[in-house]
């Protein structure tokens, strides 16, 4: 008589319903996690002093790279001054077989991982798209299109797991980058596949000029993790030991099959977005000053002082190492790189197509003609002419 036959009262939830994960453990701590000033002890003796040395070097690196932009030696430099704790801790938390997936702002992390700084800066110098061998230190090329490196990290971590290797990937992204679709897709794939990958968001409060409040209305970026079924952690990104610990835990967990994690590190870039940016257009000096008081280097220094570990020797050693590092970098960056025009046609394909070979030989002919003209007495407008 009715459309469906009567089978009785069914107050049951929909068939098969069960939350697949308990959300509570996935939610981040309500306050950013800190170690400095809490009375905590270093996980391994000497770790904090090592972090200190590296933070000093990192700051000096940022200063030197910025100076190189003024001298026309870098096309552009996105400074990580103020974010050295994140970058350094990221590199240090990785094991040799792990992979790092950096963005354009993360050359310090790349250098801290062991890559030659001149090679790490190739992209920003403008002689090559990527200056280092990614396999040697297991560092992916610096990635410019925001968040697009995140799925790469997931895929690599997944592949490593498929191959039975105990390898984790650490992917770096900014607060702005979390708004991109690729962020979402990467985290989702990672969680579904339980890939050994850790996402570290360096939340420095701005995407160029756009403040976080215009980027997301979430309680925190770390809260996004629950939407993928992975744990979210919130850490004071200027507390180097805290970042190091949170990353180490997450990477260990990932490597041993525990799945991915999302870590939000609260930090601040003390410099402008890049040397080409004018930060005074969008932020107050007061805010910058407040963050200078929360400088990662200062926080660690104060802690070491409180612990009586900030010896003259340590300070001198750190400074000397940083200065000599900077001097070496400066000197090498003042040499003119001479990328070979013929390299334009290398590595477009495994083997150049006939079409590329033809274009290559045309360029060769041009270069030869220019060289001849230039070497002829009084000759040649030089290669500048085509360089419009």
């Amino acid at each position, binding site marked *: 008589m009715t459309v469906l036959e009567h089978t009785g009262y069914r107050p049951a939830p929909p068939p098969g319903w069960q939350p697949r994960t308990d959300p509570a453990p996935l939610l981040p701590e309500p306050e950013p996690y800190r170690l400095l000033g809490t009375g905590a002890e270093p996980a391994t003796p000497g770790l904090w002093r090592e972090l200190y040395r590296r933070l000093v070097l990192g700051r000096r690196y940022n200063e030197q790279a910025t100076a190189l932009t003024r001298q026309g030696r870098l096309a552009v430099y996105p400074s990580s001054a103020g974010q050295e704790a994140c970058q350094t801790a990221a590199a240090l938390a990785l094991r040799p077989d792990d992979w790092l997936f950096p963005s354009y702002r993360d050359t310090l992390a790349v250098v801290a991982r062991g890559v030659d700084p001149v090679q790490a800066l190739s992209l920003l110098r403008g002689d*090559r*798209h*990527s200056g280092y*061998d*990614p*396999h040697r230190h297991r560092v*992916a*090329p610096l990635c410019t*299109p925001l968040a*697009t490196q*995140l*799925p*790469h*990290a*997931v*895929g*690599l*971590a*997944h*592949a*490593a797991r*498929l*191959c039975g290797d105990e390898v984790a*990937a650490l992917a770096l992204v900014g607060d702005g980058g979390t708004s991109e*679709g*690729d962020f*979402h*897709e*990467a985290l*989702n*794939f990672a969680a*579904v596949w339980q890939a050994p990958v850790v996402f570290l968001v360096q939340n420095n409060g701005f995407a160029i000029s756009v403040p976080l409040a215009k980027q997301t209305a979430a309680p925190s970026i770390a809260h996004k993790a629950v939407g993928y079924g992975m744990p979210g952690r919130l850490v004071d990104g200027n507390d180097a030991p805290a970042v190091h610990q949170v990353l180490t835990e997450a990477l260990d967990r990932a490597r041993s099959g525990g799945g991915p994690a999302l870590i939000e590190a609260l930090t601040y870039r003390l410099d402008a977005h890049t040397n080409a940016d004018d930060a005074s257009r969008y932020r107050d000096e007061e805010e910058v000053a407040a963050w200078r008081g929360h400088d990662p280097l200062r926080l660690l220094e104060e802690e070491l002082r409180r612990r009586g570990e900030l010896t003259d020797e340590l300070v001198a050693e750190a400074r000397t190492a940083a200065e000599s590092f900077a001097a070496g970098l400066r000197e090498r960056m003042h040499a003119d790189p001479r990328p070979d025009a013929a*390299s334009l046609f*290398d*590595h*477009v*394909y*495994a*083997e150049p*197509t*006939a*079409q590329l070979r033809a274009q290559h030989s045309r360029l060769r002919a041009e270069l030869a003609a220019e060289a001849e003209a230039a070497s002829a007495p009084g000759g040649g407008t030089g290669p500048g002419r085509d360089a419009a």
Partner: protein
Amino acid sequence: MTAAPASRTSPDAPAPAGTRPVTMAQALNRALRDALAADPAVHILGEDVGTLGGVFRITDGLAAEFGDRRCTDTPLAEAGILGTAVGMAMYGLRPVVEMQFDAFAYPAFEQLVSHVSRMRNRTSGALPLPLTVRIPYGGGIGGVEHHSDSSEAYYMATPGLHVVTPATVADAYGLLRRAIASDDPVVFLEPKRLYWSKAPLDLDQPPAALPFGRAAVPRTGTSATLITYGPSLPVCLEAAEAARATEGWELEVIDLRTLVPFDDDTVCDSVRRTGRAVVVHEATGFAGPGAEIAARVTEGCFHYLQAPVLRVTGFDIPYPPPMLEGHHLPGVDRILDAVARLQWEADWIPGTEGRPHA
């Protein structure tokens, strides 16, 4: 890449005894199967490629045979699929990605253009991406909006990609094997309306992987050259047959097979002989694949040409609803009309006062 001479056989010609007719879909399925069996680095990823075997069943049975770690149903996110495949390739695997329909590859466009096509170049060869992106493309199957796009022009305009599209059952096998074996990324465009086309093929003795950059000449002729690929090949062959029957024209038909790299030799050799050419494809004409083909043929054969290279293509409109697609797609009549306009006797270009050659 072996520089084999362009094959001058007709497509899917009667094959030796022992072979049986298989569809292009089956040939592609077999190519995937053989690639998975031959190389443990090969992994298939995509939407519905596992349990279901793909909406066109191209991956049918592969998850069952090789396990879902080798043939994996992914979350529904094309950029994520291609982006994770990039990472897998960086680790040394050889991913084969399926995009469900042509238009659904667009979400992955940034990954394709900004990473897939450039990673080898960016890293001076340190990170090649041996990665195949299979995309069913083209119309003619009555698909509703977004299910019949032809997007090869986008991929052709992106240096660093190989762009490949088979038109015959045997080529489907041979080119897909070659694509998966390639150390470069390949956009592998499958003409979906030919999925069910059949030809005899001995799957126990499957054909060798085909080299890229070698067009086929499935029909020789002297009057004019039809240059085509993928779904338009059967239409061109039909047109050539009709041209002989009705006008006595002998049309040569070229199946490009790979749009990138482009086989200038085979194409120019033909056009220099015939002096006339028409490019045929489903994609829209303006800034479409035929633009490049016409431009380069003209550059390479200018003094041999009796008429400009003409194009018979989809109109410059969004792909129409299925009930109207027959009016949009290049058909035999339009091809014959174009051939007829190849200045067999007089000037023809509307609005120009054509003048004789100097």
